[in-house]
């Protein structure tokens, strides 16, 4: 695998189509980015994030629904709580909380997604690999 490994949690109706659009527009981003789609970003268990980081991912990115969420008007707040709790757990485990990032990715946010992936990759490269 080339470059830092990033696990992306996307959402089936909103951010996954945005990530699809990046590929469909032939925008390149590191192949070490892998995606698991879920219904809504507010449904991510913090323990999945810790699990991924312990199993060898260098970073986790939450491609959140943001204001476009069809399930929850307060999706950003709810997802923010997931991030907060996950980062607390990361601190307890001695993991740099910067290895978890969240941004709203909408169904046409292809460029934003690619730029986030490149930026996050650079950050993780600098931060160094996890053992």
């Amino acid at each position, binding site marked *: 695998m080339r470059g830092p490994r990033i696990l992306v949690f996307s959402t089936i109706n909103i951010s996954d189509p945005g990530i699809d659009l990046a590929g*469909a527009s032939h925008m390149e981003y590191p*192949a070490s980015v892998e995606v698991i789609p879920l219904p809504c970003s507010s449904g991510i268990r913090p*323990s999945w994030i810790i699990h991924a980081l312990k199993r060898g991912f260098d970073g986790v990115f939450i491609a959140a629904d943001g*204001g476009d969420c069809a399930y929850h008007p307060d999706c950003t707040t709810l997802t923010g709580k997931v991030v907060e*709790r996950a980062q607390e757990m990361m601190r307890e485990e001695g993991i740099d909380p910067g290895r978890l990032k969240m941004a709203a990715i909408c169904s046409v946010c292809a460029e934003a997604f690619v730029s986030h992936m490149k930026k996050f990759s650079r950050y993780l490269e600098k931060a160094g690999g996890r053992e």
Partner: protein
Amino acid sequence: MEGKVGVFICHCGGNISDYVDVEKVKEAISGLPGVVVSTTTMFACSDAAQQEIIDSIEDEGLDGIVVASCSPKLHLHTFRGVAARAGLNPYRYVHVNIREQCSWAHRKDRDAATEKAVALIRAGVARALRSESLERFRVETRPSVLVVGAGISGLRSALALSEMGLSVTIVEREEEPGGFFRKVRNAYPGGLDGREVVDSLLSEVAARENITLFTGAQVVEKKGTVGDFQVKIRVSDGSTVTLLVGAVLLATGFEPYEPAPGEFGFGHPRVVRLPEFLELLDGGRGMSLLKDGDTVAFIYCVGSRGTKGCEEARPGDYCSRYCCGAAVHTACRLAEVFPGVSQYHLFRDMRTYGKLEALYEEASREGAVFLRFPGDSPPAVVPDGERLLVRSKDTLLGGEEVEIAADLVVLVTGMVPRENSGLVEVFKVPVGRDGFFNEVHPKLRPVETVIDGVFIVGAGQGPKTAQEAVASALAGSAKCASLLLKGYVELEPFVAEVDRDLCEWCGECEKVCPYGAIRQVHCEGKEVAEIVPALCKGGGSCVPACPKGAIDLAGFRDSQIRAMIDALAGGGA
């Protein structure tokens, strides 16, 4: 994990295989525990390939399949159908996207793309091995619709639904039906009189036996789910009526932005909003506020695009879409009624799209002067005796300050959603930051909401012209009818489940569920949470909310996601 999984890797005619070594992927996957078939195919979606998958399921006795191909948006339902035709539960099928999210995104590094495809499919196999048979819920539907709002959108929807054989109840909050359009005397194009349009729709509604119209009525309660809603309405005499309907169409419309006191001089007798100015203009030359020789200043984007006329103003961030066209249309009419009046139009950007551009040109020809102000520095309106001084920067003159002594200032106000908090509370339809109802997807599902069976049409969804509102009303009616005329609906089975052994009712899950799908019940000596499957939308926010980890989402269980992470990370499936 026990189980027999078949994996079908699609070339997509080269879209995948040009960038991913699919043969190598096939080899890597064939060695995984549980994988009994690993094969490549030129087009997995072709009839012949679908038949091969069906044969494989039957011959090998597969209990799970993975197709690695394009985005699930294209063929998830195709392959669920393949599974079903082979007698396999459709939810034992896992879709892996190795085109949009692999081959197309990593075209320059074949080895890396191949390695990623293997990892993604490994995760798909892990999920398939842990997949379970799920049944969609089948709900019988009632052939009747509740339409909320009797403006042009609601009335036109009701007639369309009635024509398709559905019975319709229209509930209008105001005493008089017709909405905003009823007040329009001269609509572009064609100079239509809104009252005449509304009256003709109303007489048609009255003639239909399968349409009932309640005015001065409000929705107070909704129970049930798609296909079978029980909706309580309070009618004008104070009594309540319960309606049994299969679907609901919200056509609640908009109202003009109400400027804050003092915003662009609002409150001064010679500062009026565009709708009021139009009423004055409809009265012809008898208008007391205006005579030939006077000067009128129009200020655009009032209440729209974050244009703040004063500190207390609460404009929307969005463009209200109809106002530029309405203002230049008004300019043409003003020039006709008062040829001796000078008009100045202070705008931010002229958004006269489509045929409205012709009106803009006509207004310019008729002598209307257009001045462009910067968005971050809107004009100021200062009373000066009988008149009003309008000061503005004109970016078309390099930002030069201009001052217009006006006899009348017209505020070109945008659209804001009606006060619908009661309705939102009843139907749980999400509203966006702008306060308008949110659709599931602006392009792919523009009239549907996350609440199955509740549709949104017209300007209640966002600013629209009358023409656009009716187009959306007819789209919503067609979606409504396609749902109800089949006689039943099937719902996705991704609902939350509570492990009663782990649950020690704390209420955290109930707090985050906006659908009222979680309730407290007494079970085997303790209080626990219970999910009502028909109300659960499967968003899953209750999953991390539970401090005991007692909630799982079917189809996205903790065990499945962890196994997928392990598989992606390089472990076995």
